[in-house]
């Protein structure tokens, strides 16, 4: 069995995308309206094109748009937010409605503001304040889009929920497991944000854009005359439309009556020598270079945030490179939780080039990742996703380094 140490348990057979329904992992349900697909519509070009493409295939559609965040919620941030390109704004909801009207299928807005705040926004802020660098999108996928929204889709009789993610899903006939694969268009691949999906969630979902490039998607949007065909992409986190996390966290914390500490703290180098002062840990993330507030003649980076001592530890680029990290909360997708170490290419942030590593399981949801080469800024709170080729074996959260 030694070859299993270096090879994932099962190789990926080239089976076509599953498009027929196969709910072997979901309880049978008499309420299903056969063939009905729910489309998660953000009002953007990607999810709108999903609707257009599925309709061309002759599928019956119902559109669902999530109301996630009240833009009036933190009025003090209003002045600084750009007027457009904001996700989850009322304008986006109207765009989704226009698309549904254009293609002529029923569309509904569902209110998940409470879920979103409890499961995405609050954890995001808490993680930030704990000195980690969280990814809200992964939580939103795992705990909102593919949880209450997927449940809503099934409740109203849809077989599946289709989304505009650039990734692929297929059933591996050999293992009987649902697998998540990267998008054909590597530059658009969003599988990094989807590692949290369970077998049941994957079985109930469809990613029709996984085989397409962004250009092909735009082309399809134009060909079907979608009213959003020329809409620009939203890049920022949807609830922080101006991208200013520090300002958002301060405002949100004030609203919760838990104002962030703006207590002065020390900025120290690796030896503990004080080389500067800061006004609140939440203003820093690991790997950050700019904005340290002083210059020492060579580029310095944030190495760690020491919450206990309210300290920011900085050092040069070389000191940011480490080889090992502990991963928690792992969700295994293509394989059962392994007992033995396995080889994988591991991605530690969205734009990171997956690097060769050995994943040593500690228990079902914990593992240690040892990279072949040191990696720059392995950041607590980000996801670590284990790939075998373009197949996602599983993923988890990068832990804070042990003191």
């Amino acid at each position, binding site marked *: 069995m030694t070859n299993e140490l270096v090879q994932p348990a099962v190789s990926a057979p080239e089976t076509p995308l599953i498009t027929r329904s196969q709910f072997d992992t979901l309880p049978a*349900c*008499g*309420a299903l*309206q056969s063939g009905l697909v729910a489309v998660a519509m953000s009002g953007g070009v990607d999810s709108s094109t999903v609707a257009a493409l599925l309709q061309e295939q002759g599928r019956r559609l*119902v559109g669902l748009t999530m*109301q996630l965040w009240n833009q009036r919620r933190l009025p003090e941030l209003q002045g600084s937010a750009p007027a457009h390109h904001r996700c989850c704004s*009322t304008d986006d*909801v*109207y765009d989704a*409605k226009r698309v549904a009207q254009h293609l002529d299928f*029923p569309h*509904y*807005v*569902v*209110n998940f503001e*409470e879920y979103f705040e409890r499961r995405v926004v609050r954890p995001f802020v808490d993680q930030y304040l704990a000195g980690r660098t969280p990814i809200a999108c992964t939580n939103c996928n795992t705990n909102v889009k593919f949880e209450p929204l997927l*449940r*809503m889709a*099934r*409740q*109203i*009789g849809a077989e599946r929920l289709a989304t505009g993610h650039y990734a692929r899903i297929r059933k591996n006939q050999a293992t009987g497991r649902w697998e998540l694969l990267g998008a054909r268009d590597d530059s658009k691949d969003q599988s990094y944000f989807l590692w949290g999906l369970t077998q049941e969630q994957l079985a109930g979902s469809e990613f029709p854009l996984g085989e397409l490039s962004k250009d092909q998607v735009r082309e399809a949007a134009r060909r079907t005359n979608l009213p959003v065909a020329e809409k620009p992409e939203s890049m920022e986190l949807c609830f922080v439309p101006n991208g200013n996390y520090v300002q958002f966290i301060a405002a949100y914390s004030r609203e919760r009556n838990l104002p962030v500490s703006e207590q002065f703290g020390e900025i120290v180098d690796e030896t503990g020598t004080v080389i500067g002062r800061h006004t609140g840990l939440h203003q820093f993330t690991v790997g950050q270079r700019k904005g340290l507030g002083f210059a020492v003649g060579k580029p310095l980076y944030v190495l760690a945030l020491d919450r206990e001592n309210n300290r920011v530890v900085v050092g040069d680029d070389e000191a940011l490179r480490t080889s090992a990290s502990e991963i928690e909360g792992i969700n295994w997708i293509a394989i059962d939780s392994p007992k033995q170490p396995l080889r994988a290419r591991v991605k530690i942030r969205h734009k990171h080039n997956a690097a060769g590593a050995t994943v040593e399981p500690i228990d079902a949801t914990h593992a240690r990742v040892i990279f072949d080469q040191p990696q720059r800024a392995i950041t607590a709170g980000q996801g670590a996703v284990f790939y075998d080729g373009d197949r996602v074996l599983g993923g988890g959260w990068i832990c804070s380094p042990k003191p």
Partner: protein
Amino acid sequence: MNRVYLDYNATTPVDPAVLDAMLPYFSGDFGNASSIHTFGQRARSAVETARENVAGLFGARPQEIVFTSGGTEADNHAIFGIVEAASGSAKHVITTSIEHEAVLNPCQALEKRGTLVTYLSVDRDGLIDVDELRNVLAAHPETGLITVMHANNELGTVQRLEEIGQIAAEADVFFHTDAVQSVGKLSIDVNAQNIDLLSLSGHKLYAPKGIGALYIRGGTRLRQLLYGGHHQRGFRPGTENVAGIVGLGKAAQMAKSLLTDDAARISKLRDTLEQGLVERVPDAHVNASGAPRTPNTTNITFPGLEGEALVISLDLKGLACSTGAACSSGAVEPSHVLTAIGRCADEARASLRFSLGRPTTGSDIDFALRVVPAAVAQLRELSTAYQKTGASHDQ
């Protein structure tokens, strides 16, 4: 698809007779009611006839009616108009926790400007306690306005306006009521009930959207909301929406003659629906059933499901109803009314409002009695939470 509409509290269709009455005023008799010439005089005469009809619906005089763009403007005008006309700095407003946002949000805006607002609580049927009102009034001699809605949009609960009006009159405090959900459904008499200001909206009584009215008792000083020309004696500048006003007048006239028969027929259908659903759906219960209610409204909790999913499922099957109040995007916000009557968040989410109207027929109710129990059963099948509670009930 055959579609049945049971959401008349959200809006009503324009009655064909109302539409007929309005049509001449778009292109033929298109005059500006303020103009001296014959075109203007025809429009003026139509507006004044409408004013008489609206006033006649609740015992007011025509000159006490100001036409507005709808219920929201009427509520804003009444609340800001009274509070900001009052002299002196000590200001206090009494309202309830179950008002429509067109009253709640102006009150919150007043609070930001330094006015104290008391929100009266309600009992499990949605009724305020008049003794609490008396106590609050006694504790706040500086009170300038009491604003209590007549009928609640979500529950149908009807407040005892006569008693409230009596208390307000004795304390010499202005009394405003948002009667958007009751005008045309219940008989109202502004004099017998001591009402000083009353808001109504056209599209809840088979007139079009975009027209409403505010009744202002003669002699009441009100700061104006909008500044402009001298239309409507300066109370509400802006060229009159003649066709809309004519429609509202016709609708008011019809409501007056149909009110008693409508109420009897519609409440019978409502009771059939309500009893039928309670019999056919296990654990279903009616909210505010102990209070006097508008004849057309029923609000039912179906434990163990999400009302939002039920509304969508029913719409896909052709039945239109609602949960909570709709916001601009169409998303459902948790109901402040159901929480105010003591429902927990899960129960509030599991509640649906069916509201009937003049066009509702017995076969509409039969249709609802067929599709709702089936849809609830299907959703409950998917709800592990309900199955768990259900199991514990059996033990």
